[in-house]
């Protein structure tokens, strides 16, 4: 089996071979890598279709007693499915806030010089470097004090800490790629600034907006520490439901595996929509 332990060896051997022959076997490297990525996911899916007895009873490579009971439980029990709704709600709010405030700021950074601009840009980026573990407790106190504890908006606002700097960074890269002459021509043609921005400029950086939204979605969707700290019942994210259920109801691996498998779906859907922008977008428009 091509497992991870042997992958680097394959890569090394293969690099060597290619330098001499340039033969068309290079597809083996991404193929082996993707195989390595898929095996743990397969194991998760495998487990989610098993009964608890089969999981704990022994080692099987595929489900012998195929069952959808775990998925049925999750999709019918409000404790479970409300977790998904909560997560998607705050992630969406966060994405909308982050991108809409980052747009004018990124425009300012890409087009103008103003007092403190470089320092401000660096300060924004430093917040991307703040370990969430550092902020967990103060965030809890802050959002409790202003009465937003256990609301979707609290998590959405807290995630702005690292998503806004990232969105500004990405959008600034894309905007700097748009020639300044376009702005000037629009003014001469009598466009007001808001009209120019919405009608002309935003369509030009549409892929940048898509990529920024993708990154905001991604980092808000995968973050758990802050989301868990800031919620109790009403806005509890699916990831927190999973950890709490794991300790509350013993060790129901099948249920946990099914819940985990379902958390992959929103990400997969989002990737599918931005697949053509991924290559450019991950370079943050600055290639």
């Amino acid at each position, binding site marked *: 089996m091509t497992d*991870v332990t042997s992958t*680097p060896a394959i890569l090394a051997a293969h690099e060597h071979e290619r330098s001499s022959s340039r033969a068309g076997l290079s*597809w083996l490297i991404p193929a082996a890598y993707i195989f390595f990525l898929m095996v743990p996911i397969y*194991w998760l899916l495998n487990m989610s279709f098993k009964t608890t007895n089969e999981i704990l009873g022994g080692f099987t490579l595929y489900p012998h007693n195929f069952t959808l009971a775990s998925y049925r439980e999750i999709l019918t029990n409000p404790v479970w499915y409300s977790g998904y709704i909560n997560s998607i709600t705050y992630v969406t709010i966060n994405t909308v806030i982050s991108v809409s405030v980052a747009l004018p700021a990124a425009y300012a950074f890409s087009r103008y010089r*103003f007092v403190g601009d470089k320092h401000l840009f660096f300060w924004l980026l430093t917040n991307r470097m703040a370990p969430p573990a550092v902020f967990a407790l103060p965030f809890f106190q802050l959002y409790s004090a202003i009465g937003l504890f256990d609301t979707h908006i609290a998590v959405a606002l807290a995630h702005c800490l690292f998503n*806004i700097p990232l969105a500004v960074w990405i959008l600034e890269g894309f905007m700097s790629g748009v020639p300044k002459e376009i702005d000037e021509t629009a003014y001469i043609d009598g466009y007001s600034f808001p009209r120019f921005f919405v009608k002309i400029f935003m369509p030009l950086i549409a892929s940048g907006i898509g990529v920024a939204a993708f990154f905001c979605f991604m980092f808000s969707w995968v973050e758990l520490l802050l989301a868990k700290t800031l919620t109790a019942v009403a806005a509890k994210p699916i990831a927190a439901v999973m950890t709490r259920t794991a300790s509350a109801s013993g060790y129901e691996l099948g249920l946990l595996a099914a819940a985990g498998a379902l958390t992959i779906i929103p990400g*997969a859907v989002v990737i599918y929509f931005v697949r053509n922008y*991924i290559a450019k977008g991950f370079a943050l428009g600055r290639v």
Partner: protein
Amino acid sequence: MARKVQNQKAWFFVLPVVALVAFNAIIPLMTVVNYSMQETFGGNVFFFHGVGWFQDVLQSDRFHAALGRQLAFTFTILFIEIPLGVVIALAMPRKGLWVSVCLVLMALPLLIPWNVVGAIWNIFALPDIGLLGRLLNGLGFTYNYTREPGDAWFTLILMDVWHWTSLVVLLAYAGLSAIPDPFYQAAKIDGASRWAVFRYIQLPKMKRVLTIAVLLRFMDSFMIYTEPSVLTGGGPGNATTLLSIDLVKIALGQFDLGPAAAMSIIYFLIVLLLSWVFYTLMMRNEEQS
């Protein structure tokens, strides 16, 4: 990019961003600073403790050990993920349907919630019912990541490689796909070797994106909390207790707010300092080439 106009009104454009980020960054940071200088004997009565906590943290063996583990972890994964990501990106197809398929499949681990990543590997590596654990034991290794510190580290690093190498691949691929075809044609006419093409055409073009890759991987791996806490919980013993895990143990487990806050600030400063060093070093390289 070339010329920017001086315009102080641009501040109005950045005001919403500054307000939102400052709300989330400055108030909590002030809270942390506040705690870091106070001592309490309970009952919400605090008194000034100066820099005592900072001295305690900086001199504590526990902090040194966690920092050492953190540095070992971060540099190990950087040394594996960056070259591996570049190699995979070089081997990717350039055009056609397979590009989309590859990119979508590779991006998948990046969008799995971090605790689910931990849970996936927790199950996958279990010695009795996990595929990886079974396989390794079947091959004759005695592998048990819940008991053996070495195995726990192996699993932790493997998990991070699984989780994040794709980010490097996607960034490097973006850098590569920005190289125009005539560059390669010219190299072919000159009879350049595969290595020469890589060294003098592909690597310089990837420098910028690789800078981003190293910075992002450095920052994120230094802050890693959820995945190892789900996978090993910092164990066995303290073998995989990285900085964040230790911090949360002190702050929320023992509720020692003063030392935890002092540690938070030192931790944050270390991330800032190292990121800045990386950034300037790589920018200087870029200017030279």
